[in-house]
């Protein structure tokens, strides 16, 4: 029994060590948010309010701390006033806080001072889109990096699968 427990412990240690190595390595390796699907229970107030001026960005795209900053600065939302009434604001805060915990990446402030974090300036976003040429971003059919649905038709459901990307002409 003791031997068994011992070998189990050794096995776990080996696995643990394995994870640790992968983890250490992984710190330098490329990381991106992976759990992006929007829960079916997402409140209507979230999709309606966050989806009226732009697509309702899946909460998993940013970590909780970034969403908090978004919600704290709605009066200056990338040049627009996006303020909500208190009840709607709280409901959206709660949903974002709970749903974005799947994103364990560090908060990356926007390079532009005075504005909340941007999805499109995170290291992983830039890396994932490094093959998209500047003139493609500027296409009228694309608009800008804020317009996920131009190329990712399922973006609002959290589907960003590479295989389903279609870049419009």
């Amino acid at each position, binding site marked *: 029994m003791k031997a068994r427990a011992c070998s189990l412990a050794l096995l776990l240690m080996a696995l643990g060590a394995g994870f640790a190595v992968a983890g250490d390595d992984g710190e330098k390796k490329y990381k991106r948010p992976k759990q992006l699907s929007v829960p079916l229970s997402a409140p209507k107030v979230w999709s309606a309010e966050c989806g009226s001026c*732009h*697509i309702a960005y899946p909460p998993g795209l940013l970590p909780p701390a970034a969403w908090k900053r978004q919600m704290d600065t709605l009066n200056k939302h990338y*040049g*627009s006033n996006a*303020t*909500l*009434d208190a009840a709607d604001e709280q409901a959206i805060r709660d949903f974002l806080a709970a749903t974005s915990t799947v994103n364990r990446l560090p908060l990356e402030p926007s390079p532009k001072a005075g504005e909340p974090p941007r999805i499109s300036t995170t290291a992983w976003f830039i890396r994932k889109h490094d093959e998209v040429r500047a003139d493609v971003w500027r296409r009228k059919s694309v608009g*800008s990096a*804020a*317009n996920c649905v131009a190329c990712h038709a399922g973006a609002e459901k959290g589907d960003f699968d590479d295989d389903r990307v279609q870049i419009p002409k």
Partner: protein
Amino acid sequence: MKYPLIALACLLAGAAQAETPAGLLKSYEQQARQENPKFAGFSAGRGKALYYSQSQASGKSMSCTTCHSADPKKAGKTPAFRKIEPLAPSAQADRFTDMKKVEKWFRRNCDDVFKRECTTQEKGDFVSWIITVK
């Protein structure tokens, strides 16, 4: 014989509860009267002028038409690529039927374009114009 009457009564009760652009305008009128004893009515002409007036307050020249179309019977587009349904109730039936929604967008959009809140007078002027756009 009774049933059509009941149905009619229900319909009327429903209609009384649902806000209409005219009812919403009435609310603004009451508010304007309360705020200003010299209130002399709304002006559709001023409301139209407000819609088309260019403002530099935000640092770039813009007006309501920048995002809403210059023709309020047509759809517009937000700076972040979302379609905006037409503003004129003649083209989009649910416009100006929900005070909470109307107040939210006046609050945000007057700040976006003019960098200030719109007055009750301005809101009423605008609503009195937009409901006449056919």
